[in-house]
């Protein structure tokens, strides 16, 4: 049965996601909630909300920092917020608290800091949470449209390495690439994609359900170490493509080689500013030498976040 090929639309912060972001207010203590509602914010531009005990409320809005200085955050408000974030059940979020963040409904990341309780050199839990950072989810549908034509070869995706400095939107582009490949686009039908979401940033699962749009044929391993997750996905979910974010260590590379050897394609991101950076990284340089990667995509934020600087093929010949 032939699948209808869909067109991708660019939908930067469409109406649906703004409403989703407004819901983030529900996790705050009542008093803080009232103040935030009174500020009449555009939730499309709101990026972070920070609460610190005894300090004013701080917002990161449209890349600028704003202080709500009439409001000093109290310990009770922080405790109340923690209670709501954990759905009144702190015991149920022990694992998340150990990692330092909780993903709430809507895909927003709530980070916690406070007194860490260690046991046998492992972080056991956080006590006395006094600092909260709420990062609102901002998925950009259509962010990967520009690179789509380069990622496909005869209707099949290629091993793609996305190289980017921090803050240039690589996760956003990876997410949209996953969505596009999973749903199907002008270049190919939709296919099964597996995502190893170690830091819960790509899919932002809440209670096991991805809060970001990542495609109907996508399976997610949430908070799973990359090297184990990739092998698990190959064995259990038979994906055609596996996507991981920020590789760097040798065990990740071993797993990558295994996946490539199984015939599954890879979409991977890595820190760096240019292709040459990768050639000098200790473990990655082998993969470059063996020509595992069929496409290299370099990002920067010239002009706008997520700007495509250049695209290279497996031999390093520049395509764009």
């Amino acid at each position, binding site marked *: 049965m032939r699948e209808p090929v869909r067109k991708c639309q660019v939908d930067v912060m469409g109406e649906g996601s703004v409403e989703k972001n407004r819901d983030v207010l529900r996790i705050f203590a009542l008093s803080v*909630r009232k103040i935030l509602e009174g500020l009449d914010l555009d939730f499309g531009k709101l990026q972070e909300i920070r609460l610190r005990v005894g300090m004013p409320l701080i917002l990161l809005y449209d890349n600028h920092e704003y202080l709500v200085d009439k409001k000093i955050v109290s310990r009770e408000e922080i*405790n109340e917020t923690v209670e709501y974030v954990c*759905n009144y059940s702190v*015991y149920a979020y022990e694992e998340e608290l150990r990692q330092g963040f909780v993903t709430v409904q809507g895909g927003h990341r709530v980070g916690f800091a406070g007194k860490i309780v260690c046991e046998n050199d492992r972080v056991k839990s956080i006590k006395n949470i006094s600092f909260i950072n709420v990062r609102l989810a901002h998925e950009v549908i259509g962010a990967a449209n520009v690179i789509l034509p380069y990622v496909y070869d005869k209707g099949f995706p290629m091993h793609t390495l996305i190289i980017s400095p921090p803050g240039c939107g690589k996760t956003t582009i990876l997410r949209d690439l996953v969505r596009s490949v999973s749903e199907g686009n002008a270049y190919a039908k939709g296919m099964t994609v597996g995502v190893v979401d170690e830091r819960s940033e790509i899919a932002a699962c809440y209670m096991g359900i991805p809060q970001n749009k990542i495609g109907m044929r996508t399976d997610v391993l949430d908070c799973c170490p990359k090297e184990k997750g990739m092998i698990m996905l190959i064995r259990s979910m038979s994906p055609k493509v596996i996507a991981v974010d920020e590789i760097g260590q040798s065990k990740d590379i071993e797993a990558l080689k295994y996946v490539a050897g199984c015939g599954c394609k890879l979409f991977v991101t890595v820190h760096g500013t240019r292709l040459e950076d990768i050639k000098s990284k200790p473990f990655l340089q082998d993969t470059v030498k063996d020509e595992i990667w069929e496409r290299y995509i370099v990002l920067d934020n010239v002009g706008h976040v997520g700007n495509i600087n250049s695209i290279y093929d497996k031999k390093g010949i520049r395509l764009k």
Partner: protein
Amino acid sequence: MFGIKACGIILIIVASSGIGFSISNIMKLRLLELAELKKLILMLRGEIKYIGTPLGEAFGVIGRRTKGIYSTLFQDTEKELEKLDGKNIADIWKEQMETAQMIKKSHLSDNDWKWLLNFAQNLGYLDKEMQLGTIELYMEQLESTLAEGNRSYGKNSKLCKCLGISAGLLLTIVFL
């Protein structure tokens, strides 16, 4: 004349025995409800210990697995908890108890309700070990109340029934 007297006598005896039997019945129902409550708290412990379900969902699951007065109480509490309206859990529980008119409709004593409310105060903000600890404590409390209740029921039920009948007879004689 005699007929009316006979009716009167029968009415008094029946009424008095009825009171005796119904007091005995209330005691039995209270014990049954306490046993049911204990079963539900056991389920709650299981949900928290082995699955780590958040409270709202746990209440919903428990509410759907039981019938009777607790069913609506637990399920409505789940709905309130999901609203995240800014109330703390003990207040929500208390409100729900009042809306469901639990105290009137059920046969538990005031003391039993006080203990349950106390338990609700300690839900949610503790880590897993301590949370399970408070649940264990409340379960012990319930068990001891149940044991005591069973003992006294054995004694008192017969007592109430006999007293009911004899009081009826006595009143008949007095008013004959």
